């Protein structure tokens, strides 16, 4: 990472935790974990509360749908770390019925059912252009999404427009798929806090 403090500036107890994670998972500690554990009162703890609520709080979107939104926002931002991390979580959440990687490979999202497809396309425009208008929202509503579903999707989009920027700025290293699969398993069982 581009800031040494994020790699090795943690307190003793956190370093012990990292050693434990590495021993149990047999994988390197992901840079996103190092980020949220550094001066956690400043960013990690309050952002963790936001992300937990957006990704695991009450919503009519499934966990898999919300993880797919995270991966799609990451793809729009060209954030390699976040694409791999959240594609892995979405795939584990959906199971074998859906192929997340194939879904994301089509720019038109032809394999995604409505109203999730229209919602994703709106999130992509918002992420790419930093703004959307009422006509964009009418398209999503017309595809069958409720106003509450759109608000819930925007909460996901907010979280990953923060995290993706930090991954890019701090230079997260991108490990192999085994590390992301281990991280995905953790996020599905323990969440984001």
């Amino acid at each position, binding site marked *: 990472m581009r800031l040494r403090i994020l790699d090795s500036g943690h307190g003793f107890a956190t370093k012990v935790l990292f050693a434990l994670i590495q021993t149990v998972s047999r994988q390197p500690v992901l840079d996103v974990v190092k980020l949220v554990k550094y001066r956690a009162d400043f960013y990690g703890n309050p952002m963790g*509360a*936001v992300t937990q*609520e*957006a990704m695991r*709080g009450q919503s009519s979107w499934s966990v898999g749908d919300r993880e797919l939104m995270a991966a799609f926002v990451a793809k729009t931002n060209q954030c390699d770390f976040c694409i791999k991390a959240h594609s892995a979580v979405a795939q584990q959440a959906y199971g074998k019925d859906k192929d997340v990687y194939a879904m994301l490979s089509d720019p038109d999202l032809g394999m995604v059912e409505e109203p999730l497809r229209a919602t994703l396309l709106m999130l992509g425009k*918002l992420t790419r252009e930093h703004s959307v*208008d009422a006509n964009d929202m009418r398209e999503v509503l017309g595809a069958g999404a409720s106003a509450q579903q759109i608000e819930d999707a925007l909460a996901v989009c907010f979280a990953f427009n923060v995290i993706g920027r930090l991954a890019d*700025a701090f230079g997260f290293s991108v490990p192999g798929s085994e590390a992301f699969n281990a991280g995905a398993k953790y996020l599905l069982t323990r969440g984001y806090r």
Partner: protein
Amino acid sequence: MSNVKQARAALVTRILEGPGKTTPSERRAAFNNSGVRKPLATLVDKVATHSSTITDADLAVPKASGVGEDQAFEIVVCAAIGQAIRQYEAALSALEATAR
């Protein structure tokens, strides 16, 4: 998701008004991507508008100008959250406009 707005507001209050290694006004400038002092202005703008193009040099320049790592950490976090908030609020306004 009734709690997410409260959590987001608490996050913004913490990063802008809580204790830190930078002043609240420096953090507010990064959050707004406006009025950022020179060694950090390019980095903040890149975080906000095209973060995938950030390179090692974008962090090295402010550090060489005396910006500490903790200061850079706080400024980057504020810049990222500020831009994401602006996007979120623009989208929410667009959604609310459909009801008028």
